[in-house]
């Protein structure tokens, strides 16, 4: 169990900047996730930590030891590859025991440790199978067992669930989380699936084009996105662009036409002044049809332009003149098209972001 620190790490491949000046500290025993669209540099970052790629600039530390120039086979990290990378010419047992043999354990110890880890990942009895004789989920567990059995300082997981079907993915992510808590091992996880990241992580780093856009606990990055990219990457939202008309302590009001939207800045260091351009980020699930204290919420009345049945809830596109917003409502609420509906959203749920230097997530 170690603290992993990245200091100003950069890596380019030809013209592509895969990792761009990343500085991070991953705490002991933490479940840390790199989240971002594909191609944003997650895998490269993970591989730099494993030593499979060397950074052009910057340093990597395990606790206080600078491991930047340590070759991968001396780093004692346990990596699970996206494609599992199980050796087809070895049985499950041989795959898992490989790292132990290298470390010079006796036959007896190897047997014991492999048995233990097989128990842990619930694969007992499959020792003599070859990887091709296993299902996707089983292969995934073997890959995990192979990484865990060497008791690595850090567990590195590169989209380990992306090759599984949807149901298995949900089961496995809970199991992963359980295992990680049980073993208390520092874990670095890579995924492009925001839901997965939110469910499984202690902290998340949202990445974009090699840069870290925001680091924080799941509810923090979800509730308090510090930029439009994070806001739009984590779930759907309505973006309303307007001019700041009022700043009152923490509360900022922006206006577009006659509509006023009041919300909060995600960060204390952020400042907005009257007359500046800004965005309001409105998440559809934060709206309600009724509210206890209307004095602390925005109230919007509009016409129903469209109604979507999503399942657990209904989604309405509500027209407010030139703009429209997405609103989730209870599944029993089915207003007819063109009818008037009033919805509320508390000020504290509305995030106001300065317009300068903001970019929207194009992916997903």
């Amino acid at each position, binding site marked *: 169990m170690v603290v992993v620190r990245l200091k100003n790490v950069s890596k380019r491949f030809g013209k592509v900047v895969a990792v761009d000046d990343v500085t991070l500290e991953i705490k002991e025993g933490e479940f840390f996730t790199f989240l971002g669209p594909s191609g944003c540099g997650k895998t490269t970052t993970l591989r730099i930590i*494993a*030593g*499979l790629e*060397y950074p*052009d600039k910057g340093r990597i530390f395990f606790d206080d030891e600078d491991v930047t*120039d340590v*070759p*991968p*086979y*001396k*780093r*004692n*990290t*346990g*990596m699970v*590859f*996206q*494609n599992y*990378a*199980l*050796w*087809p*010419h070895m049985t499950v047992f041989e795959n898992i025991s*490989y*790292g132990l043999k*290298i*470390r010079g354990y006796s036959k007896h110890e190897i047997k014991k440790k492999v048995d233990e880890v097989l128990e842990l990942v619930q694969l007992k009895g499959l020792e003599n199978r070859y990887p091709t004789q296993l299902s996707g989920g089983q292969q995934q567990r073997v890959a995990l067992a*192979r*990484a865990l059995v*060497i008791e690595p300082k850090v567990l590195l997981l590169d989209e380990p669930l992306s090759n599984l079907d949807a149901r298995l993915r949900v089961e496995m992510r809970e199991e992963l989380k359980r295992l990680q808590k049980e073993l208390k091992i520092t874990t670095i996880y890579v995924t492009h699936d925001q839901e997965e990241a939110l469910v499984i992580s202690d902290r998340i780093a949202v990445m974009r084009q090699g840069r870290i856009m925001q680091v924080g606990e799941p509810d923090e990055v979800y509730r308090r996105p510090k930029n439009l990219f994070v806001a739009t990457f984590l779930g759907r939202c309505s973006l309303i662009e307007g001019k700041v008309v009022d700043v009152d302590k923490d509360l900022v009001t922006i206006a577009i036409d006659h509509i006023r939207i009041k919300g909060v800045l995600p960060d204390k260091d952020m400042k907005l002044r009257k007359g500046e351009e800004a965005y309001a980020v409105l998440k559809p699930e934060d709206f309600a049809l009724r509210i206890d204290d209307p004095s602390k919420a925005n109230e919007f009345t509009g016409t129903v332009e469209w109604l979507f049945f999503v399942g657990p809830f209904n989604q309405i596109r509500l027209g407010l003149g030139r703009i429209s917003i997405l609103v989730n409502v209870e599944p029993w609420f089915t207003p007819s098209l063109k009818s008037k509906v009033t919805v509320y959203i508390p000020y504290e749920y509305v995030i106001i972001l300065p317009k300068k230097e903001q970019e929207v997530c194009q992916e997903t």
Partner: protein
Amino acid sequence: MNLNIKLIKRELDPLTVTQLIIVGLILGAFLVLPVSFMILRAFFHKGSLSLYYFESLVAGGDFIKTKPETSWIELVRTPQGEILIIGRKGPDFGIFLNTLFVSTMVMIFATTLGVLAAFIMARYEFPGKNFFKVILLIPMLATPFVNAFVLGKVLAVNGLVNYLLYETLKILPFKIWVTGLPALILIQTLSLYPIVYLNAYSSFINIDPSLEEQAENLGAKGLKLFLTITLPLALPGISAGAALVFIFSMEDLGAPIGLSGAFGSGLHEKILSFRIYDEFRKGIGSIEQVHASTYAMAVVMLIIALAIFLLIKKYVTLKSYAMLSKGGRWKPRVRRLGVKGLVPIYVFLIILALSASFPQFGVVVLAFTDWAMSKLPSKVTLEHISALLVNREVFRAILNSLIYSSVATLIMLLVGTSAAYVVARRKIPGRDLIDALSTLPIAIPGIIVAVGYLLFFATYFSQTPLDPFFNPGLLLIFSYSVRRLPFTARTVFAGFQQVHESLEEAALNLGADRAKVFFTIALPLIISNVISGGILSFVYSMNEVSTSITLSNLNPNQGPITFYMSQVIYASAAVGTVSVAAALGVLLIVAQILAISVSNYILKQRVAFLGV
């Protein structure tokens, strides 16, 4: 800069350094140095750089004839009747142009035949297709010298064709005799067309059918479709095959020597490869006796071969050669034919198959009958085959071949695997050089390697085990290792390419250093490629002609099979009969069939292989 040094230092782990040393040492000492030394020698006259030897070549008048002889047919009246002689007086443009002429014609004919056959086999379904699939490849089974001798037996004045068509059936108004350059072109075309055929075939079946269907959908069909879509898509494969045919034709010694054995000297000897060989054969005893203009000849030949090789490599990477072709990833477009279509196809295929495979069948007949001594085979005998074991000289030649080829195969595997791994996995400067060097031997005519060895090792390693006058066998081992390296290197490289790098990274991650990763993960995963490449390399080493016959001259006791065969067929030495050479040819055929079957079985894939 600082960064680069760090990167190189990281990439140069002990395994990589060892592999680089192995590759550098073998390729450096047994390819680059000897050949470079020979090139230098050709450019030095009386201690200074000069084109003297090249000028004297041209001035000699025999190199490029000022008055080329172009009449190539003559009708001669003899007591036994009229004979139509093709190729005796001409064409003859001088050694240099003859070489280009022969290779160009062989390339054109082989490409035409190969592409046509490949297209038929790839795109039509007809009864007996599988039979033709096998029979069309028979010419790839090399039987050096003897196949040309068989051609002589068949096409000579008293040969089989005249016996059948003139004497017996009386269809021909005169006898026919094909000799000289036309005979060379004929025999080389027949033995080399399968290279184009195989490449064209795999190109055709690897064309995504939807590409052709789209064109049809837009209204193209028949010849138009072929010329606008199919051919252009297959062109890289076909042209690479054609280029190899050119190079192999130019370096071939088996055909000219075999023809000399059958017809005596003639214009078929007036080509570069034979001339160089002959100079060295005559110059036995001391390297000083060899006139330096011979080196100039070799340089000319090398330049042509390299130019063609580099041109084609620029156009298509030769990487796809000696490599696995994964037949039919999709269902290829195959059409059934009506009777009207079947007839021309059968006529073409039967004529091609018969004429292309008769040398191999002839070799078998020679080996098992008394045909060598008589006009027609009259009795079956096992005496020649048994000579392989009984005749001490023959047996020694077999043993020599086996030893040289085995050791060479081990060296090839070592060098080939090392080179392939470095090229496939390491990011170091000079990687492209290693890649080029391990493919280059395909383009270097064997006779040039032989000349380079003679010159270099006789000059600098005199009185050592590497002295060609004392110990040509050892040099043959290295010459095989280098000349057949592309087979191993390419097959192994193809293997590494198919292994996902993450499999090796997973082992690195678990604590295995690079050497361990190589031996426990990378190598076991591609072991079937290694074995298969090894088997093919072994057999192609047994077939090696150019260096075998040139170097062994210096110490015949160390001569391998092909040397013995050349002696029997060509040289005056009465060491044995042609029938025994044919028996050796049968031995080689069997070895090749076995090797190809085993390696196909191991790889469970068709191996596109290169003959010669």
